[in-house]
């Protein structure tokens, strides 16, 4: 009995300390991100959704603490996932009330990462659960899977380069679920009968969309006007 009690005590204690460690790790990453109060970035955005034919466009991204985020296309029309690409690290970390749980380890892009699950304690939060893949050595979030209340699940993969010291990625790939798109031909006035019949694999692929942004430059802590976010 004593052995069982000892085991349970040790197990509980180890879980407790492990959980504490994860909070510490998350707080370290947050602290690194907190060094940035605002940024303006230039990039090129590619929208890869099966039912969208769009060219690559130049974009400008603005961020301001605590969680203001705006993506603007340099003129023209932009197509973004419902809910926006505004689900990013800064918006996730803007919430201070969360529980972090260790969920093992994984390799992302050839780098060993800690898998951490963040559960917001605020019941009204739009984010329900976030799983982060953290590169512990460099304090960088390599991958993030976020489930939201309104807009489903997003998967965000980040590749770092020259702005890694600010935890700002050079490339972000944003994967999301899409719904079927179809309009009656009577509305679009298309007369031909060459509708492509999709296989099950193609249908499944069509339900996933990707937005890729390659950042070319960041202007960090130079001040961003509030009017940009309106």
């Amino acid at each position, binding site marked *: 009995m004593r052995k069982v009690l000892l085991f349970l005590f040790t197990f509980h204690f180890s879980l407790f300390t492990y959980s504490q460690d994860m909070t510490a790790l998350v707080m370290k990453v947050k602290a690194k991100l907190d060094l940035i109060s605002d940024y303006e970035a230039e990039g090129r955005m590619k929208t890869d959704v099966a039912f969208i034919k769009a*060219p690559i466009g130049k974009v400008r991204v603005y961020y301001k603490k605590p969680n203001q985020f705006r993506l603007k296309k340099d003129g023209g029309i932009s*197509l973004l996932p*419902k809910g926006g690409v505004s689900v990013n690290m800064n918006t996730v970390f803007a919430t201070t009330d969360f529980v972090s749980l260790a969920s093992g380890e994984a390799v992302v892009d050839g780098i060993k990462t800690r898998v951490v699950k963040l559960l917001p304690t605020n019941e009204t939060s739009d984010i329900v659960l976030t799983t982060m893949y953290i590169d512990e050595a460099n304090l960088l979030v390599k991958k993030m899977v976020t489930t939201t209340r309104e807009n489903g699940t997003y998967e965000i993969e980040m590749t770092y380069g020259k702005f890694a010291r600010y935890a700002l990625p050079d490339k972000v790939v944003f994967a999301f*679920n899409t719904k079927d798109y179809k309009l009656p031909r009577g509305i679009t006035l298309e*007369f031909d009968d060459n509708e492509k019949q999709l296989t099950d694999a193609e249908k499944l692929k069509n339900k996933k969309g990707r937005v890729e942004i390659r950042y070319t430059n960041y202007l960090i802590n130079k001040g961003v006007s509030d009017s940009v976010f309106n």
Partner: protein
Amino acid sequence: MWTLIQIELFKIFRRPRTYIAFAAITGLIGIIQFGLKLDGDSYVDFMMRDINSSITVEGKILNGYQVCYIVLQILLVHVPLLIALVAADMISGEANMGTLRMMLTRPISRTKFLLAKFMATVAYTLMLLVWLAILALFVNMLLFGTDDLFLLKSQYVVLLKKDDIFWRYLWAFGFAALAMTTVAALGFLFSLFAENSIGHIVATMSVIIFFTILSTLNIPVFNKIKPFLFTTHMIGWKEFFDIRVNDANEAIIGSIQNPQKILHSALVLVLHIAGFVTASIVIFRRKDILS
């Protein structure tokens, strides 16, 4: 020949009926512009309701290029009816007034006479299209500005960059000219058969409406005959607004998804025009002119 065409054009533009088409196009486009200027956002919301479930579209969707596309989509189905007003009256109008027999006493061959009338009809059709282009494209560019063009197709959506649109409209209007000339040729052919113009105008309109409905119906039994109907190919101008994508699903700027389809449709329309005009000449040369 040129003198004959000039005389025919003079006769066309002397008739009040000719200006009905110009007035109708001006009125219709004016109403669309007024409505979209006043409450365009509601129209865009309605248009985007399906796509908005998974994608957020940001930017100036309702710009001059978009309004022009909306106008063309609505009007290019109805402009044939306006063309029929003049084309189907070209020979029967003369017969009705009793001037056809007198004109054919002049030392001009019947073929030349008929071709001059047809060329004048084509000139009228082109003028109507130029007027449509001025109002639908240039006036809308002034009123609504220019931006990227976002188009909803039945199975996908297309986003065209601002700099990649104008040339497509020029080609689209060129193609529309071919489509409208086909209608003019049909109306012209019908105008040979009786002295009453109204009958021919109604007959031309009926054929266009009948064929358009057949082209629109997605019933397997009709799909077999659709490729042979000129109305199916008349909307080929839309193909200029479909863009090709590469293996990475990136749209290739300056490309057209299916140029062969446009060429095929253009060829079908040219064959129809040639067929209608040839049939008109053959019938007219053998016709006993009694009025």
